[in-house]
Structures are given as structure tokens and as C-alpha cells.
């Protein structure tokens, strides 16, 4: 797996990256004539955020050596939880079969069935499946706490000192336990996480985009976090030490990003985390745009809740690295606001002539280009060239999702845990990219307005070019929203047979 290959980047190079970023910021903040003060303030807020992101990333991938104990003979009893909430039985069955084939002496398998409390029609199928394979099914009857509540319920019904958690669609490899359990020989290790790999990433544009984004996170970022004992749980493909988990209050039910918040609470208690940079289970990416949208929203909402309600930076029991890393990860979802601001600046100029700074466009280029190039190159280098334009497109184009999450948190609107659909939700999801289409329309008209006001001035041309860049970034995202369903093979066969009959 290319995305998991680490490239050791020279600290000097990373320092140069930071120096160029800071230089750019200082020039923008101090050395040019301020245009409209309000726009300038927004610009500076955006640039501070960018600087923070660059710093967070460099801090993640900073080359460090971490001593990790691993004892392959450490094989205590383990409970394997497969969390199910109405997923299609064939998908769950595939996971169950793989779990039963894991190469490990003593473990028990439990289906954690939340279908009943979630009012799923097929909730009984999980119990039938458990019977079929001779495993236990723990069906919750009392709702609450969503997935975290489901796991906590199972914790109360089981005794094993270690707990493995798989989402219904995540199929482990034989060696999953053998390659993960040995880390628990260190008694401080509270959880061990392995990557979430989407085996369907070539299915369509949505799965591809979703995976491209994940690759950076599960490659360079989590491996970097691991080196500073700041890796956090990602909901599936992970093993937890029961004792530490219970000491932290079990899986946190106060956030829809229960894995993220629980990790923070465990780290706060002095627990250690390990990230294993090897694909040991394969899962499914959301196959349709609506499911992707909902998944991203849940992650954004959950992570931002941590920023606003449990701000890691002020939690004194965490190490400085942990504070930086948790805040960096959680605040990523604020980027939607910044993307929106940056994308809208050229439009403001077209329609009003207002600009945040009076600056020669060439001077701006001189300080901006080295900064952006080195940032992009650093990402490519550290991610072993697994980051793609599509990943960038999906990340930046998700700004309406992120803004919606911020808005809901600020207005105190409640949001439930929605399980990502494991089957494609068919239909036209184009309405989800309405903000992007409106942007394009406003941009085209804005260029005309600007041109009529001042002709082909350098400012109009440069701003028009920025608009083109944003549109180019939005295009893959918009295309994914409008992507037509591919007929699956059974449909194709049916059509063929029908054709023959006719």
C-alpha cells in the first residue's frame, strides 16, 4: 500500500516550509496597505488558520522515533465486537466469516445489534446470522448513545480484557489480531488502531474521492501522530484495553464523534495509543454522494463539538503534542469557513471593487508561490505521493458541509448519529452542490461586472484566475454529485436476457 510507505523528510526542509509560510503571513499582515478593513480582518483570520494548519501538519509529520514494545506471544482473551445497525446481512456475513477465520487462539465474537433501537426492518436478521455461525448477538432494547451506547452496552455484557471493534462492513485479515495484540504488552497502551481501507475505492467518483482523502489521513497523518503518541481511534479496526476504556468512562456518548472524544479522554488519563501502519481490514467507502455528504457532516459535527465543548488546548492532563494534534485534527473542519471566505473574495472585488489589501499582484505572487509550492510538495513527499487533486477537490469543496456543521453547533441544534449507508442510495444528489453552482454563476456574472468597471486590469485578471481555480477545484465534486448510477451486473444480465427474449 503506497499510502502507508513513510518518507523521512528532513527537519530542515520542514523548517523551511514553516519559514516560508510565516514569511508569507508576515508580509500579508504587516507590509502592505490595508484596503477594506473588514475584508482585511477576514483575510488575516483565514491566513492565521492556514498557518495553524501548516504548523499542525508539520508537527504531525515531524520525524521522531518512538520506542514501541511488541510481544508476539502476548495472546490474552479478546472480545470481537461487530457493530451492526441495519446493514445488509450479506455485508455483515462477510465480516463475520472473516472474523471467525482470524489467526488467534482465544477470542469470542459478538454482533452488537442496534437494529432494534434504530427501528430497522431487518434487525432480526443479525440474530439469525449469529445463530448460523454460532456466535452471540447482543441486541440492545434500550436506545441511547448511538454507536457508543451500543458498545457500552456490550461492555457491560462481556468480560474479556480486550475488545476489538469492527464496523459491519470492515472485513479483517487473518493476521489482524496477531499483528495488533502484541502492542498491549506495554500496560499503558490503551488502544491500537489500524487503517480504514476502502476496497471499493475504484467503484465510482464518490468512493474514489472519499478514499483519496482518507489516504492522506491514514498514511502520513496518523503515522505521524503515532510517533508522538497522539493517534486517535477511528471507530473501527481497533482494539481497546477494557480497563482503561472503563476508567475513561467507556465510549463517550456525548459526541457523535465518539471515537475521537474517547481517545482524548483516554490520553488524558495517561493511556497510550498505537497506530499500526498496515492494512489489516478492508471496508467500504460511501458509494453515493448523499451518504458521503452525511458521513462528512457527522465527522465535521463531531470534531467541531470537541473544539467548542472539550477544547483540547485547555485540557491540562494532555501533553503539549497531544493538545496540538487534537486541536489540529478537530479544527480541520473549520476550514470550510476559510475556503468560503477565500473563494468569495474575488466575487466581492468584482461586484464592489473592495479588496482586503492594496498590493501589487506580482509582489503577492512572489511571496505566495514559494509558500504554496513548498506546502504542496511537503504533502506529496510525506504522503508518498498518494495525495491527489481529487482529494484536494473533495476537501475544499466540502465547505458547505463544514459550514453547516459549524452553524448547527453555534445554534445548538442537535444532530443524531447516522450510520453511513453500506449500499448505494440511488437518485439525483445534484441539489447538494447548489452552493457550488451558485458560485459559478455569480463568478461568471461577476467577471463581466468587473470587466465593465475597469476593463482588463491586472486585478480583474488575477481575481478571474482565482475564480477559475476554485471552479476547477469544484468540478470533480460537482461531477461526483451528478454521477449517474452504473447498472450493476445483475441488471445488465437481466437486460441482456430481456433483449434476447425480445
Amino acid at each position: 500500500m503506497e499510502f502507508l510507505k513513510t518518507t523521512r523528510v528532513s527537519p530542515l526542509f520542514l523548517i523551511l516550509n514553516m519559514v516560508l509560510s510565516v514569511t508569507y503571513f508576515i508580509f500579508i499582515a504587516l507590509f502592505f496597505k490595508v484596503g477594506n478593513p473588514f475584508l482585511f480582518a477576514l483575510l488575516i483570520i483565514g491566513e492565521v488558520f492556514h498557518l495553524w494548519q501548516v504548523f499542525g501538519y508539520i508537527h504531525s509529520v515531524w520525524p521522531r522515533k518512538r520506542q514501541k514494545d511488541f510481544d508476539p506471544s502476548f495472546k490474552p482473551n479478546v472480545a470481537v465486537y461487530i457493530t451492526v445497525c441495519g446493514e445488509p446481512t450479506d455485508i455483515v456475513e462477510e465480516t463475520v466469516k472473516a472474523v471467525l477465520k482470524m489467526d488467534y487462539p482465544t477470542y469470542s465474537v459478538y454482533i452488537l445489534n442496534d437494529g432494534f433501537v434504530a427501528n430497522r426492518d431487518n434487525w432480526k436478521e443479525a440474530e439469525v446470522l449469529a445463530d448460523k455461525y454460532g456466535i452471540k448477538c447482543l441486541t440492545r432494547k434500550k436506545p441511547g448513545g448511538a454507536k457508543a451506547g451500543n458498545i457500552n452496552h456490550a461492555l457491560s455484557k462481556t468480560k474479556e480484557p480486550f475488545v476489538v471493534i469492527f464496523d459491519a462492513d470492515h472485513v479483517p485479515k487473518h493476521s489482524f489480531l496477531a499483528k495488533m495484540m502484541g502492542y498491549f504488552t506495554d500496560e499503558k497502551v490503551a488502544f491500537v488502531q489500524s487503517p480504514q481501507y476502502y476496497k471499493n475505492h475504484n467503484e465510482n467518483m464518490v468512493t474514489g474521492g472519499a478514499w483519496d482523502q482518507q489516504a492522506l489521513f491514514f498514511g502520513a497523518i496518523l503515522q505521524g501522530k503515532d510517533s508522538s503518541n497522539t493517534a486517535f481511534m477511528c471507530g473501527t479496526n481497533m482494539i481497546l484495553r477494557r480497563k482503561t476504556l472503563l476508567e475513561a468512562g467507556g465510549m463517550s456518548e456525548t459526541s457523535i464523534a465518539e471515537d475521537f472524544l474517547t481517545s482524548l479522554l483516554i490520553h488524558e488519563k495517561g493511556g497510550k495509543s498505537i497506530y499500526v501502519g498496515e492494512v489489516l481490514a478492508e471496508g467500504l467507502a460511501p458509494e453515493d454522494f448523499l451518504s458521503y455528504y452525511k458521513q462528512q457532516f457527522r465527522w465535521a459535527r463531531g470534531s467541531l463539538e470537541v473544539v467548542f465543548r472539550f477544547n483540547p488546548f485547555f485540557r491540562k492532563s494532555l501533553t503539549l503534542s497531544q493538545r496540538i494534534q487534537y486541536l489540529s485534527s478537530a479544527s480541520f473542519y473549520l476550514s470550510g469557513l476559510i475556503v468560503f471566505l477565500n473563494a468569495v473574495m474575488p466575487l466581492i472585488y468584482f461586484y464592489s471593487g473592495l479588496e482586503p489589501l492594496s498590493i501589487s499582484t506580482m509582489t503577492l505572487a512572489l511571496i505566495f508561490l514559494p509558500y504554496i509550492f513548498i506546502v504542496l510538495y511537503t504533502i506529496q513527499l510525506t504522503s508518498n505521493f498518494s495525495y491527489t487533486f481529487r482529494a484536494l477537490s473533495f476537501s475544499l469543496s466540502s465547505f458547505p458541509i463544514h459550514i453547516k456543521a459549524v452553524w448547527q453547533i453555534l445554534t445548538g441544534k442537535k444532530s443524531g448519529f447516522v450510520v453511513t449507508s453500506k449500499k448505494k442510495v440511488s437518485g439525483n444528489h445534484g441539489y447538494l452542490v447548489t452552493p457550488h453552482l451558485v458560485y459559478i454563476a455569480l463568478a461568471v456574472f461577476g467577471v463581466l461586472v468587473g470587466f465593465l468597471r475597469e476593463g482588463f486590469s491586472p486585478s480583474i485578471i488575477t481575481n478571474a484566475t482565482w475564480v477559475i481555480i476554485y471552479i476547477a477545484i469544484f468540478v470533480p465534486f460537482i461531477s461526483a454529485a451528478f454521477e449517474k448510477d452504473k447498472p450493476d451486473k445483475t441488471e445488465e444480465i437481466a437486460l441482456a436476457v430481456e433483449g434476447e427474449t425480445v
Partner: protein
Amino acid sequence: MKFLTSFVANKKFLIYLSLFCMMLFAIYFSVTVFAHTSLRLDEAQSLFQTNRDVPGLLNLVAQDVHVPLYHILLHYWQVLFGNDIFTARMMSLVFFVATIPAVYFLATYIFNRRVGLFAALLITISPFMDWYGSEARMYSMLAFFTVVHQLAFMKLFREGKPVHWVWFTVTAILGIYSHYFFAFVLLAEIVFFILARKEFAVKKAFRKFTISGILVAASIAPWLYYVYKLGTASNTQPSLMEPTSVDLFNTYAQFIFGFQVDSLNTVIVSLWPIVVLLAFFGLQKSRKTTKEALFLVAASVVPVLGAFFISVTLRPFYQSRYLIVALPALVIFIAWIISTYPKKLALALRAILVAGILGLFVVQTLNPATPVKEDYSQAVGYLNNKATSKDVIVLSAPFTIYPTEYYYTGPAKVTTQPIWNRFEQGSVPAFDPAKLDAEVKSNTDSYQTAWLMLSYDQGYNEKIKNYYDNHFERMSQKEFSKNLWVYSYKVRYDPPIAITN
């Protein structure tokens, strides 16, 4: 026959045929268009310096800001083929045409044939290269030696055979004797060596590079000593403005899209954010940026930034033509980065780029206001028709006497302001406002009309013009190319003396 058929069917044949067509394109445009443009100031200097024996030539070049290889070659070229400007320009064309396959081989060696061919195409249609490929100056030769030298450097990086060291050192010596700015090529290599020293194929590379560097330094040392001994460098050195960030981006815009009038150039450089988008497109899975690609970045950025930095901090000597050393690496890098994009996008970008360059190539060629055009031919032709034996022609800056005398066939006296005798050793005299009155009087005394030709402003043309405007009656004015003006002034009102018996 069978051999011929299989040869034609061979992929290599098609590639060589493509290269041949590119070279023909370059020759065609040079011979039919560029080679017939007016002699320019720098070219006039080349002719002036090379139309004498080698010691005399060396003496003149040493007083100039250049190194002598080009001048020596041009001297013998003229001995063989004639000493008119068209013939002189043909020598530059030879180097330009040779640069096309050289770029192909370098890009193919680093990447692949597809990149090589596209890079060669970009070099062929580059309005910048075409311009200097037909100018009687050393720039196309400098570009050629740069590419050949960089190929040796890349071979050292990957293979490191003894023959590559010889090749590397010899081409470095040829390069540094072509232009002082070749030092920036070596600087880019040093930067790359620092970044990738562990990945050089050859062992003890540092020691070997040091030896090579010593040889290059030793080879240029006698020339530098000679220049130092003469103590009159900068005889004809133009005074240059300190560059700004605009100049920096203009340089790259000129490299790709040629010389354009200010309004069009503003549009081109204002499109700079497009390079950010191109960088975004470059984010492709498993498309690793090889170390060789980093070398190309260094080779296309270090010379430009280096010259910019020194010009800003020490002394202005920033000229985009001196930086032609960065152009081949830049086009190869562009050809490579586009090749990493998805196929359809790459195809579209190649088509847009080629169409854009060709369009601007045509504009550069046809537009009389193109900034680098110096129409001394028309201006002096005008003086040939107008100036009589009772008139004086005054030139500023003084060194514009070179192109003027190439075309001037009339009877009027030709002089300069400030007054300069270029056959005496020493620098061009500095402009001294206190001497202006006396010098103008000296120049115009006893003549009826003064024809003031102003071009290549060294910071005092406006003062001279104002003096003439304030003291004499201006009778005409005409601009022949950008900033090349001819004014006529009535300097004497005495009636002609009638001599009768």
C-alpha cells in the same frame, strides 16, 4: 529497400522526423523573418568587436561585460562566410537549431521520449528562443552549452562514468567562456548537489566535483586576470535599473510567451495564479517528483532568483536574455509536469499552451511596438535621406553609434552626447550636467541642423532633449521603434554665405 521500409516504420524514425521538422521550422522563421530585422545595438557591438584581429577583439571584449568565446567564433565565422549582419546571425541560428535536439535528448534522458518531444517543440516555438536564435549575440550559444552541460550533469547523477566527468568539465568551461551568467548554471548544480548528494551514482562525487570546479576556475582565471589588468571593464556596460518583482515574472512570461507590449504582457503575468492550478493538477497518485525534476526546478529558478537577489542587493545586472540559461530546464519541466496529468487534461493543456505560444509568437513578430525591436535601420535610413553635409547627427546613449554607423552612409558628421571617442581606452564618459552646455555647443557649432537620435536611455536622454528643446527650435520628431526617437533642431539661423567674385 526492406531496410528503408522498416526504418520508416520505426518509432525512432518518426521522432527524428519530428525533430527535423522542428529544426526546419526554426530555420524557416529565422531566415525569412528574424534575420531581416534591423541591426540592434548589441549586435552592432558584436560586429564592431569581431571585425578586427583576435588580440584586438580580446582587448575590446575584455573592456566589455562579456567573455570572448562567442566573439572568437564569430570572428572566424565572418572570415569564412562574410561579415554582414545576416551572416553573423546565422551562427546564432546554428546554435539555436542544435539546441532543439539537445533539449530532446536531455528531456528524454531524464524522463521519456514523449516529454522530450514536447520540450523540443516548446523550445522550437519559443518566441524568446527564436528571437535570440537570430540575434548576433551569444545567447543561443549559451543556451546550447547549458543544455549539453546539463545532460552531462544528469549523466553524472545517474551513471557517473569517467567520460561524463570530461564532458561535464569541458562543457562547463565552454559555458563559462560563453557568458558570465553560466555561473548560475553551476550554482543551480551546487544547490542540487547539496540536496541530493547521497543519491549521486558516483562515489566521492564531492571530491570529483571539486576537482572539476578547480579546472573550470583555472580555465577562466587567465581571462579574469586579463580583464583585471586592463582595468577598464564596463566600457560599454549599460546602466540597468534595479529589478522588481514585476521583472521577475516578466522574465518567465518572456521565456514562454516572448516579448509583448506592456498591455498584453500585463494580461499574461496577471494570470500567474494559473500556475497554482497547474501545481494542484500535479497532485496525482504515485506520480513521484523525481530528483531529476527537482534539478529542473533548481536549474530554472536558481539563475533567475540568484540574478534578482544580487541585482537587488549588490549591483543591478538583471536582464532576461542573460537568464536564457534557465529556459531549457523550464520548458522540460513544463513538458514533464503536463505529462503527469490525466491524459485528456494533458492533451488539452498541451494544445492550449502551443496555441497560446504560437499566437503570441505571431504577435511578437508582427507588432512593430514589440519592446525588443530596435529599428535603427529605419531611423538611420531616415537620416541618410534627410541629413546633409551642413548637419550634425548627435546620438545618445553614446554606444548607439555602433548600429548607427552600420547603416549610415550620408555626409553629415556623427557625434555623441556625452562626447565619446571609442577608439581611446576608457569607459564611456559619464553624463555631467555641468558639461552639457559646452558639449552641445561643441557638437552643434558651425552646423545648420542637429539631428538628435535618442535611444537606449541611460538616465539622461530626457535632460538632453530638454536642453535642445529649450535652446533650439524643434523642427520634427519621429519614433521608429519603442523609445527610439529622432528629433531635428534648427541650431543656426545665419544665412548661407554667398561667395561671389
